[in-house]
């Protein structure tokens, strides 16, 4: 229990009144560990930002609790919480210089001048903006503004840093750089990071654990590998990466696809009857037809993507399935439309979904 930093307990947040009430958060409970890089991932409107704002204190939950280090902080104002936020819009103070922006929180805490100065210097070094200390924030590029926002939020040494889609305004190259930078900062400072994003790749590459959200509920919490390889439901499987959904039946622990092929799959959990099986396209390989342990399939079409080739196939009963094949050096995978092939599913790739 002592390694829990932030906890939401049955948090509900409803907006609107009467018939038009929208439950932005619907009974969410989550425990975020100390020093962890935790990502809230979901499409827009899933409630991830609302949960972040509850933790920051900008919103009060309709019911439920927010705890920090085991203490109830639900009713605590934002300026009384040792939690700082990096805003999507950065929200830098336009009338202050970079250094004054970074020192703002410390000053408001009433820290002595010398400490404000030395911490600001340290933060400037941490985000590599020493040369910009005296500039107005409007004179900075997007990436630099982002780093000022980070330094400003880190300067008061909060117990938890909240990041609300901080990278969404940056172009791709800068975003990749900042992802590395953020991860480095988190490891260096040891502060608990709670990161909100709708970008699944960002979530997978940076996080220790991910909470996937949809419709105000947390669908699954787990490490990136867990979430990707063992999604609990259709939403999680489809939101993160590409995947195939195949109708199947389970009988006595044996999974039979609608095409009649019997396969081994994880996540059966004693289910029986009609289920959906998912498998990632990159876990499928083509073999010559009728090889043992393969499914019979027909090549329908393919698209060349450079690093790999997406091949659309039909199973025996016409079920569509996509395989992502690594492109050979020549670029020509030798695919022939209408050709009969065998389809091998990598061990452990097939998962039975909860719904």
């Amino acid at each position, binding site marked *: 229990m002592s390694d829990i930093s932030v906890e939401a307990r049955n948090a509900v947040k409803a907006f609107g009144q009467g018939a038009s009430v929208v439950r932005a958060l619907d009974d969410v409970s989550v425990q975020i560990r100390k020093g962890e890089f935790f990502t809230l991932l979901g499409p827009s409107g899933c409630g991830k930002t609302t949960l972040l704002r509850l933790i920051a204190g900008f919103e009060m939950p309709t019911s439920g609790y927010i705890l920090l280090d085991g203490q109830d902080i639900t009713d605590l104002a934002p300026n009384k919480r040792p939690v700082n936020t990096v*805003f999507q*819009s950065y929200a830098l103070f*336009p009338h202050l210089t970079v250094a004054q922006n970074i020192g*703002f*929180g410390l000053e408001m805490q009433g820290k002595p001048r010398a400490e404000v100065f030395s911490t600001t210097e340290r933060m400037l070094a941490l985000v590599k903006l020493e040369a910009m200390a005296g500039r107005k924030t409007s004179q900075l590029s997007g990436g630099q503004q982002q780093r000022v926002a980070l330094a400003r939020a880190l300067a008061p040494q909060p117990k938890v840093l909240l990041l609300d889609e901080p990278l969404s305004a940056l172009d791709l190259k800068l975003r990749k750089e900042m992802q590395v930078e953020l991860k480095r900062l988190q490891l260096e400072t040891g502060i608990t990071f709670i990161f909100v994003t709708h970008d699944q790749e960002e979530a997978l590459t940076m996080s220790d654990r991910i909470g996937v959200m949809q419709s105000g509920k947390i669908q699954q919490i787990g490490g990136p590998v867990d979430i990707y390889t063992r999604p609990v439901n259709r939403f999680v499987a489809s939101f993160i990466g590409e995947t195939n959904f195949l109708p199947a039946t389970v009988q006595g622990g044996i999974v039979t696809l609608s095409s009649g092929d019997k396969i081994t799959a994880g996540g059966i959990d004693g289910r029986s009857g009609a289920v959906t099986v998912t498998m990632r396209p990159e876990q499928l390989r083509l073999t010559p037809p009728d090889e043992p342990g393969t499914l019979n399939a027909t090549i329908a079409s393919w698209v060349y993507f450079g690093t790999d080739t997406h091949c659309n196939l039909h199973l025996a009963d016409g079920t569509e399935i996509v395989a992502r094949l690594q492109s050979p050096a020549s670029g020509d995978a030798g695919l022939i439309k209408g050709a009969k092939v065998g389809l091998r599913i990598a061990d452990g790739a097939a998962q039975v979904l909860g719904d």
Partner: protein
Amino acid sequence: MSAREDKARLENARNGWALSAPALLVLTFAAAGPLLIVLVYSFLTPGTYGNVVGTFSWDGWVGILFSRDIFDGTLALADAHLTIFWRSVKLSLLTTLITFVVGFPTAWFIATRPPRQRAMWLFLITIPFWTNLLIRTLAINEIIRAEGLLNTILLKLGVIESPIQMIYTDGAVLVGMTYVYLPLMVLPLFAAIDRFDMRLLEAGYDLYASRIALLRRVIFPIVRPGIVAGSILVFVPALGAYVTPRILGGGKNMMIGNFIELQFGQGRNWPLGAALSMLLLVIVMAALLIYVRASTGSKTPHG
């Protein structure tokens, strides 16, 4: 090519002059010209029945601060004049302060309404402009005079036994000027607050700022151009106010505007009136200079 460009440039310049000619004419003959006359008059000698006679004299300017003894002609500091100047500056500054204290929350309220409601609120703010200033001031007179609405009600309720002297005091002038100039404070404040990014409040609040600190360290510095503009817009006309102090201040509580009018009227001292007018102009220009400084060069060091 270059000849063609030159021709085009020349034509542009000619068009520019032609287009600005009406404004320039108006400014020359309606603003600069009369001012020049006032300036000249301030250096002349008063005529017996008003107007001026064409003899050069410093008396107009000297008369701003000193009065000449009628018997021995010695100069003495004119306390009455100083009192009037001091009252003018004091009342104008107080009016500016009160309109700011009242106007800031008002402007904030309007700026934070949904966009569709904002127009309605701004419209309401401008309603007082629909009525003539004299009528509005007389209306205040009607409320606060000895037999006026306020005193009558208080008497009837038995709160007071005899009417309170409200009219013909500095307080009455202050109330009147605050009422008249409030919209001039609210409108520029609204414009500044409207541009203010409310997300900065969350950022400040998140960074341990109290509400007072947010106001002082985030809101005020950022909306400062609006505060300065509103203050100038109130202070300048308040300093030269004529109608309000005349009606609500009576003859005793004169401000510069009334004092100038007196010189051109009963005082029959046009040079002094002209010199006072120029003085007022200088004060206003100084105030505007401060405004330009404050709204452009924002290089004040910060904690």
